């Protein structure tokens, strides 16, 4: 990487404490991630990495052409992350856009196979993301059926919990309309309700709470606490530090596909806040 980060590397004292090979902390573990690498295959990509591309004039574009951009690129989204989680922990994951938070969750859930490294879990985890549209042409009722069955519930269990899911999601009569007619908040609430209906051992939530209003947030927090008390582990990806601080017992900061901090919510969030503020200040000075 660049000079700046290398200087950073030398100055930061906390790095010295971490010897490269550590023993796994031995409490009752529910999840163990070791040296995880995830890469995407991207077809027809010209630029690799995160963030916006550099502006180029037509001449520069012409010069850059000529076989330098292969049809398939490998994008390294996660570059070596290791951590262990215990039963009953609520772990927040923070980081700027494109830092690999959602990919990390998906890899932990076994939905994207790792390029190298291992993930061990106690039982099949359930991932809940706002992007995970089930089938937008179908009604909410159909989607509840599909989602809950996909999570491994039996048809009988789905029937029993159907009303509960609808009530929790607060979508009322909209349940009979196609999901594409839903507002993003309604869709997010329904997905949360479906995922939380299965009481998974590991529940992962990807920004879902950002779509709910205050009332729904309180309800989902109660539901998450319930799952945590049932000895489950909860992961929460969010850009809202307030949400993270109020719900989590531990925070991971992911940056550029790597884990840069892991610890108490207060400590990590404070450090992250200064980073974001510096970034904001810099963005202002550029304009």
């Amino acid at each position: 990487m660049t000079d700046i980060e290398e200087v950073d590397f030398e100055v930061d004292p906390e790095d010295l404490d971490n010897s490269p090979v550590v023993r796994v902390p031995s409490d009752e573990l529910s999840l163990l991630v070791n040296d995880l690498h995830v890469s995407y295959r991207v077809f027809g990509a010209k630029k690799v990495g995160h963030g916006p591309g550099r502006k180029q004039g037509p001449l520069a574009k012409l010069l850059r052409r000529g076989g330098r951009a292969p049809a398939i690129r490998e994008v390294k989204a996660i570059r070596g992350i290791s951590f262990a989680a215990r039963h009953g922990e609520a772990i927040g994951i923070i980081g700027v856009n494109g830092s690999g938070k959602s990919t990390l969750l998906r890899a932990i859930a076994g939905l994207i196979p790792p390029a190298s490294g291992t993930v061990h879990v106690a039982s099949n985890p359930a991932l809940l993301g706002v992007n995970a549209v089930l089938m937008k042409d179908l009604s909410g009722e159909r989607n509840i059926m599909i989602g809950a069955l996909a999570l491994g519930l039996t048809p009988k269990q789905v029937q029993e919990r159907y009303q509960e899911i609808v009530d929790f999601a607060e979508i009322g009569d909209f349940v009979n309309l196609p999901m594409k007619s839903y507002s993003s908040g309604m869709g997010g609430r329904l997905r949360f309700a479906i995922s939380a209906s299965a009481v998974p051992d590991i529940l992962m939530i990807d920004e879902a709470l950002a779509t709910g209003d205050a009332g729904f947030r309180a309800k989902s927090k109660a539901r998450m606490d319930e799952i945590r008390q049932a000895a489950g582990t909860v992961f929460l990806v969010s850009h809202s530090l307030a949400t993270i601080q109020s719900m989590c017992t531990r925070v991971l900061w992911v940056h550029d596909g790597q884990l840069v901090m892991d610890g108490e919510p207060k400590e990590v969030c404070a450090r992250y806040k200064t980073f974001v503020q510096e970034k904001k200040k810099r963005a202002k000075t550029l304009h």
Partner: protein
Amino acid sequence: MTVGEAGSAAAPEVPAPLERVFDQASVDRAARENGLDQVGVRPRLVPYLKDLWTRRAFIKVLAISKAYAENQNTYLGQLWALFSPILNATVYVIIFGFILKVGREGIENTIAFIVVGVFMFRFFERSVMAGAHSVNKNMNLVRSVQFPRAVLPIAGVLAELTVLGPALVVMCVISYFSGFLPIAGTVTIDAYWLLLFPAVGLMWIFSTGCAFLVARWVAITPDLDNLLPHIMRVLMYSSGVIFSIDRYLGQFSWGWIVEYQPVAVYLYLVRSALLNEPAYPPDGTMWLLGVGWAAVFALVGFVVFWRGEERYGRD
């Protein structure tokens, strides 16, 4: 956070990455002590089959929903499931039956012959395409819930079978009434019509096997998706959908390959059950071949698909 950004002097500081890697022995021990299973590893065949069996309700709901969603955004809605194959067959009957007349050689009832061929081949073709798209088009589902991925091709083909149900009735009705036309041979309703069910059943199993195969190939190599329609076109002309293979290709030394390949076998079985064509009598050898092809394709397809299980969802 591109490299370029970090290079300027005022770049915000990020703590250095935690260079932490657990040593393999302690990972293994911890996994054993806490009863953890590794994620992203292909399950063994028997547990995979069991898991798949417990998901049969999921397969059913997914298939019916897909079949329903297909024609949902039109005014006529589900009626298109009947109109599309009828229009499709009409075009072929007019062009190949009446204008070019290739569908008349060695065939007594051209209309029924072509209608049955087009309806049944359409089912096969759409099943294979459904299989091809089953992983890629359901990426949202694949990336949010963990379930045996074999559910997707199975549900895709089952959705086509659901659509085929009412279309079969239309097919039988058209075939029967075409027999009253003066230019065509009669079609009688007899006990042989019951053979339609096992024939369609075998074709369904065979199509599911094909769907498994292409599902894996297209998931790994998306380019194949562009080739498939052309392969299907070739298959259509070499399966006797609109003309008699025996009459046109039987004279070549390789004619038997075309005659006994699976799609042609299933078309033969359905026609021998429904029509009174002298060239298509009920035939035990063909039934054996039909069972054989279905078993081989279903088994091989399933195993091929299962062997790629841990790779689906990667992109």
